[in-house]
């Protein structure tokens, strides 16, 4: 067990190291940020000064070593444009993304689960066909397009919902701030969260329906029914319990993807999360911020994977022997 753990952790560290190289060199060969900041009156001397100020006069390998050295001290560098440590910018904005992603998750489950159960119980009813059609469309529709259409309908034409930004915030236990507890915040959250939830919702509907149909034919359900247990209880307790496991597993795995797709949603709805920050950083070539965001994401995913691996190995000893989770 210990050996397995060590091996996984070493692998994770290796992956992290490789990613820092790829990300750092990848981002540092594109464009040239100097000319974004230089005003039109800035002459060569002034441009040279900017180059020195941004640390771009150093050879790229030395820039990388500096970066790596700082990384070991938990410092991801300083944003060109904001002039503040990149990590603090990310941490400042990550809660907004997290809130959006969780809200999308809740919507996907809250809407997808009942629809999927219905479609699984009555697979041949026209409403079920409609539900499956809806799931097929929401799985297929590019979320940027649907986001734009939502803005057009609900903000511009009907004027029901605000189209930009995050609403009023309240602090929870003084630890972090959330917007879904205020009316204004909820109104701001609804459209971006719904847009972001569509793909997940489609998945939940499909998984639930498939799971329902499988489980309904299972012996123990037939047995429960035969024993005269109330239908509602059969579905509410026995069936649901069994189909929830794969759904939760898949959603857990997809959650990272949702955070990534938030890049699109956030730029449409001007949601002040890390995804919007990344797009803005790319536009002005704020290299340290781009690199920091990517490293942050890589660490997050590597950590999640490591955790999942370890959990699996604890739950299922066979994995340890095979050493291969796929």
């Amino acid at each position, binding site marked *: 067990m210990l050996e397995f753990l060590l091996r996984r952790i070493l692998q994770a560290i290796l992956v992290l190291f490789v990613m820092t190289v790829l990300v750092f060199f990848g981002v540092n060969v594109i464009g040239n940020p100097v000319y974004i900041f230089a005003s039109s009156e800035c002459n060569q001397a002034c441009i040279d000064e900017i180059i020195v100020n941004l640390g771009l006069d150093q050879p790229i390998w030395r820039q990388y070593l500096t970066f790596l050295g700082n990384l070991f001290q938990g410092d991801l560098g300083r944003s060109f444009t904001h002039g503040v440590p990149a990590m603090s910018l990310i941490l400042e904005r990550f809660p907004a993304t997290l809130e959006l992603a969780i809200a999308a998750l809740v919507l996907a489950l809250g809407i997808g689960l009942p629809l999927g159960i219905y479609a699984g119980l009555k697979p041949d009813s026209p409403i079920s066909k409609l539900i499956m059609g809806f799931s097929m469309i929401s799985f297929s529709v590019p979320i940027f397009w649907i986001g734009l259409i939502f803005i057009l309908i609900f903000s511009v034409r009907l004027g029901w919902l605000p189209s930009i930004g995050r609403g009023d915030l309240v602090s929870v236990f003084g630890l972090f701030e959330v917007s879904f507890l205020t009316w204004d915040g909820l109104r701001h959250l609804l459209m971006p969260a719904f847009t972001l939830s569509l793909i997940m919702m489609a998945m939940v509907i499909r998984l639930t329906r498939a799971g329902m149909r499988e489980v309904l034919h299972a012996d123990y359900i037939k047995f429960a029914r035969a024993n005269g247990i109330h239908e509602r209880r059969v579905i509410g307790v026995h069936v649901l319990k069994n189909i929830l496991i794969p759904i939760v597993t898949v959603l857990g795995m997809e959650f990272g993807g949702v955070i990534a797709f938030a890049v*699109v949603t956030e730029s449409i709805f001007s949601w002040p999360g890390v995804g919007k920050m990344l797009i803005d950083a790319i536009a002005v070539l704020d290299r340290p911020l781009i690199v920091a965001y990517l490293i942050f994401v890589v660490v997050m995913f590597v950590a999640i994977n490591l955790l999942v691996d370890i959990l699996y190995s604890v739950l299922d000893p066979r994995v340890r022997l095979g050493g291969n989770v796929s």
Partner: protein
Amino acid sequence: MSDTALSGPRKPSRWAAFSAAFFGVPSAAIAFVVFVSMCLAALLAPWIAPQNPYDLGAVSILDNLLEPGEQSFSGMTHWLGTDGQGRDMLSAMLYGLRISLLVGILSGVIALAVGTLVGLIAAFRGGWVDALLMRIVDLQLSFPTILVALILLVILGRGVDKIIFALVVVQWAYFARTVRGVALIENSRDYVEAARGLRFGAWRILFLHVLPNCLPTMLVVATIQMAQAISLEATLSFLGIGLPPTRPSLGLLIANGFDYLQSGRWWISVLPGLVLLVLIVSVNVLGDRMRDVLNPHLKR
């Protein structure tokens, strides 16, 4: 796409059975017709489009923002209107469809080839090669596709070749993992054992025996991946980091048109959006159906 299924390795009657099962569901039949006609329209765009939208000499900004059905200065009727640069929307959409399909299919095919090769090697070599390749696959799959593609394109710049490359990078791992799984199962089958007994070369067994049996599964994955690739390309182009704006795909047409949406020029954004939606839905329906018929156990 379905031609490949024709040349399946088994008896020809299997095709008849397959097609009967496949088209037994009306939605699949409709999706098939829609998809094939879209491919045809894209293929024949240079001949059926009323205008060559890439020929700047033929497009005039004096004809811009015409409503569907309006006539231009030169007396040409634009059945679906024109965009902000005066391009005929019908023509622009046909050419855009062409690019979206090209990107989707080409990236799918290349990713399929690369993934298949990697998957077969992993399955056949086993040992540390397998372990290493599958770790890479795991790593690749653990990152969200959009993020990987986004970063690649930021580094590479814009262009059809670049977006295809980025899409291949994010797709190959799906194929590799699937093919490896199927190949491992096939590997232990009797016919492979028999072929080994006859001392056929490993590669010969691989390509003549194992590969054909992986095809149905790969076809399913390829179809689903193609829908994703088309959607991803549109999204990236919308974010301004996919294709160059001079040769717009459907995604870019939507992005360009959104600027005009609020002033009531809905056709510039909504029409290509609908075409894109219909395209992706039809591909997804085909993929779903194919999975149900060919390989009911494959997880999405």
